[in-house]
């Protein structure tokens, strides 16, 4: 029988994941530290490119160098939160494609709760949250922003919205893995990781036919650029500052419908990925 899910229960489940992460850090410290360094170097290399261009050219498309730094800080925070909650449960096509949902079916918890709580890695995955926070403090100081509780709440709301869009899009495309497990096993990697660099581009000054698709069909502009300008008090393209929230709601609904359909297909057809002696096809 499935457990009753309360906030306390969710926190306990997150704590279990966090504990396992800590145990990993303590038992295999060398490997975990290497992982932390890899996350840090990878993110710094990604965001520093755009920042260095801004520094060289004195800003990008009407955004000053400090504003670009602010955007890179936001992007680093998103990367950090993403890594902290992603133990393959956001790269979900990998789990579906490899037939690993079967492992989840035998747990006395709903899939939703397992997806939300299973990949929490605050110790090994939190380094970019720390770096992002430091960069954010520096950028805010350079820009002389007036920080109020409302502004901090807005920042948190935008970060949550960005994460919702990332997760919803990952689940939307990963639904294809229910129907084509081998071919689409890594489709979430292609969509999430393949576009990460693009999400660090400041779109200011670009023509609308580039900006609009990047705020709709391929929402990389919502990963850092739009939230940055909204937090600086000038949301782009005369859109409401709440546009990312509306978009997140829409894509979540769509992902929910498509993912459920895929799951229904999966429970009827199953997965053909494993041969009886354990190897993956």
């Amino acid at each position, binding site marked *: 029988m499935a457990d009753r899910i309360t906030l306390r229960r969710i926190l306990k489940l997150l704590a279990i994941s966090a504990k396992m992460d800590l145990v990993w850090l303590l038992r295999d410290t060398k490997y975990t530290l290497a992982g932390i360094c890899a*996350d840090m170097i990878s993110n710094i290399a990604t965001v520093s490119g755009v920042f260095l261009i801004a520094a060289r050219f004195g800003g990008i498309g009407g955004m000053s160098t400090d504003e670009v730094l602010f955007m890179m800080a936001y992007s680093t925070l998103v990367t950090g939160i993403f890594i902290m909650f992603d133990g393959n449960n956001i790269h979900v096509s990998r789990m579906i494609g490899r037939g690993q949902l079967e492992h989840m079916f035998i747990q006395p918890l709903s899939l939703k709760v397992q997806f939300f709580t299973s990949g929490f890695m605050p110790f090994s995955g939190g380094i970019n949250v720390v770096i992002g926070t430091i960069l954010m403090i520096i950028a805010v100081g350079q820009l002389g922003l007036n920080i109020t509780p409302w502004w901090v709440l807005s920042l948190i709301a935008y970060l949550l919205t960005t994460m919702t869009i990332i997760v919803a899009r990952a689940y939307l495309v990963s639904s294809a893995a229910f129907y084509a497990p081998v071919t689409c096993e890594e489709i979430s990697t292609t969509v999430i990781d393949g576009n990460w660099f693009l999400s660090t581009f400041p779109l200011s000054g670009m023509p609308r036919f580039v900006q609009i698709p990047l705020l709709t069909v391929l929402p990389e502009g919502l990963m850092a650029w739009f939230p940055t300008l909204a937090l600086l008090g000038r949301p782009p393209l005369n859109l409401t500052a709440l546009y990312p929230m509306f978009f997140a709601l829409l894509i979540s609904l769509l992902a929910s419908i498509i993912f459920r359909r895929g799951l229904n297909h999966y429970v009827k057809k199953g997965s053909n990925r494993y041969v009886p002696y354990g190897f993956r096809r």
Partner: protein
Amino acid sequence: MNKYIKTARLSAGEKTNGGILYLMPDVLIKICTLIPLIFLWRVVMSSGVQVGMSFEQMLSYTYVSAILADMLVVKTSASGWLSEGVLLKLYGRPLPVLSQLVAQTIGGWMPMLLLFSLPMALLAPLLGVNLVPATPLFFISLLLCISLGFAIDVLFACLSIKLRNMSWLIDRIRVAVVTLFSGTVIPIQLLPFGIDEVMRYQPFASLGGASLSIFVGTANAREVIALQIIWNLILWPAALLVFKKSQEGMVSYGG
């Protein structure tokens, strides 16, 4: 030679076994990154800051970088040879391992060259992109870049042998560092604070960024090629030596 061509063919076939449709997300992502990147350069170059490069040169640089991406920073299957069972395949065939890796990698380039690079090259004149190299020395530089890319890849693969189950982490660090230090996305000469002067002489700078700067005519071709030859002469013997010593330490744990 025939056996290597067959290996390359097998490798090209492997990429399309899941159907051409499977490669389409990668093609789309390449296009969707290239277009905003071109406009990003248009925006920054219109600021009027003198960087020793015109917008037309920058456009060609970015475009060629995208269509020759696989060659400008070589990546073989060796980076995952411990965890993905590649080892068994390579050592089970009566061919030298490194030569197989080269043949496999070149074969693996083919589907993307046909599906992305060729159509984009044909579209280039319509988009106003000049795809004629400033000097024929570009082709020599490209060959040296590919050769150096293989040497660097072998060195990283040997590092993954040494560190055993860290191959994924090594790959992650390598992609990030090489992307920035090779100048394939952001030309090294555009880096501020004097970083460009320091970065010019490190080995990764002799990869794609070197060939691209010769292509658009912003670098002294002879100097760049000389540097590429020097790095090839240093890193190939090192790669062969390290590979020879690493072979016995290989432990395959995947498949």
